[in-house]
């Protein structure tokens, strides 16, 4: 067992252990914070695997951006800070069985398939220079398509989260056939007309 394998085993134990804590803890905020530990340990694993650029992108995007987004989501949904009793649904034993079966099958396949394969770890294999050349020479078309996808998801997130855009823009096509809504699908000026049927639709609307 070489030094790289020892370091990777420690990082892997940290990543898997904190991932298990993410899915079993009773506090929502702690789940997000354990996710930081898990992703950080995975970034360390990428460093051991000589994928430096991926490691730093992981730190920047996952630990920096995604966790902050998740924390904002926890905050905006007014989750309780302390322990909450009902974070697990009723089918957790079935879920445990399914995930144990998944783990058994995957670990068995991986260990039996790659039992005596070793990989060469060569420094600089995943540096920013190599990856930049690969992205902008070979994979430049998927890169551009991905930027369009990011733009589309950004527009989608804005449209979903703004509530003052007209009903033509942010509702599913099926909603257009509602009486009273199809004539109003033009603009914002009729918003008061369809707030009124919406008010008795949303539960718990009267208590705030």
């Amino acid at each position, binding site marked *: 067992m070489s030094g790289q*394998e020892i370091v*990777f*085993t420690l990082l*892997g134990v940290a*990543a*898997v252990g904190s*991932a298990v804590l993410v*899915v079993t803890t009773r506090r*929502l905020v702690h789940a997000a914070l354990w*996710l930081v530990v898990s992703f950080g340990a*995975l970034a360390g*694993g*990428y460093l051991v*695997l000589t*994928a430096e650029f991926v490691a730093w992108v*992981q730190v920047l995007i*996952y630990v920096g951006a995604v966790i902050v*987004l*998740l924390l904002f*989501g926890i905050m*905006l*949904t007014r989750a309780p800070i302390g322990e909450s009793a009902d*974070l*697990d*649904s009723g*089918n957790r034993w079935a*879920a445990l069985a*399914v*995930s*144990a079966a*998944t783990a058994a099958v*995957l670990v068995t396949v*991986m260990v039996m398939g790659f*039992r005596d*394969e*070793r*990989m060469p770890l060569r420094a600089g294999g*995943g540096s920013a220079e*190599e*990856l930049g050349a*690969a992205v902008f020479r070979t*994979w430049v078309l998927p890169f551009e398509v*991905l930027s369009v*996808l990011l733009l589309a*998801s*950004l527009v*989608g*997130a804005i449209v*979903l*989260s703004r509530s*003052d855009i007209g009903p033509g823009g942010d509702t599913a096509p099926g*909603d257009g056939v*509602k009486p009273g809504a199809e004539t109003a699908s033009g603009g914002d000026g009729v*918003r008061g007309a*369809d*707030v009124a049927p*919406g*008010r008795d*639709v*949303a539960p718990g609307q009267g208590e705030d």
Partner: protein
Amino acid sequence: MHLAYPTVVAALLFSAGVYGVLARRNAILVLMSVELMLNAVNLNLVTFDVWYRDRLHGGQVLTLFTIVIAAAEVGLGLAIVLLVFRNRKMIDIDRLRTLAEEEDAARPRPAEPEAEPEAVDAR
């Protein structure tokens, strides 16, 4: 390095994510578990990229793409979760059964049609 170490770590991470998706009730926790599964896939991609010594670095570049897609997914997912929260005042996945089949037509449903986003600014 032996190939079994990263692949076993990836498999265990993936099954932790599977457990989280199936067992958790809060929608944000389900999103976190999806992120765990995506990270397991990323670890596999990087591992096999290093193993094949891919000159085009397909695995690592695809890992970057997956990270970007995961960021887009969590952004959209949180937007949807916040929309559900504004309309229903809760994000328990077990109780969001408006799209379910007929067998629970007897139970009191929280909303007769799918609640519109415009119901929000009545607050």
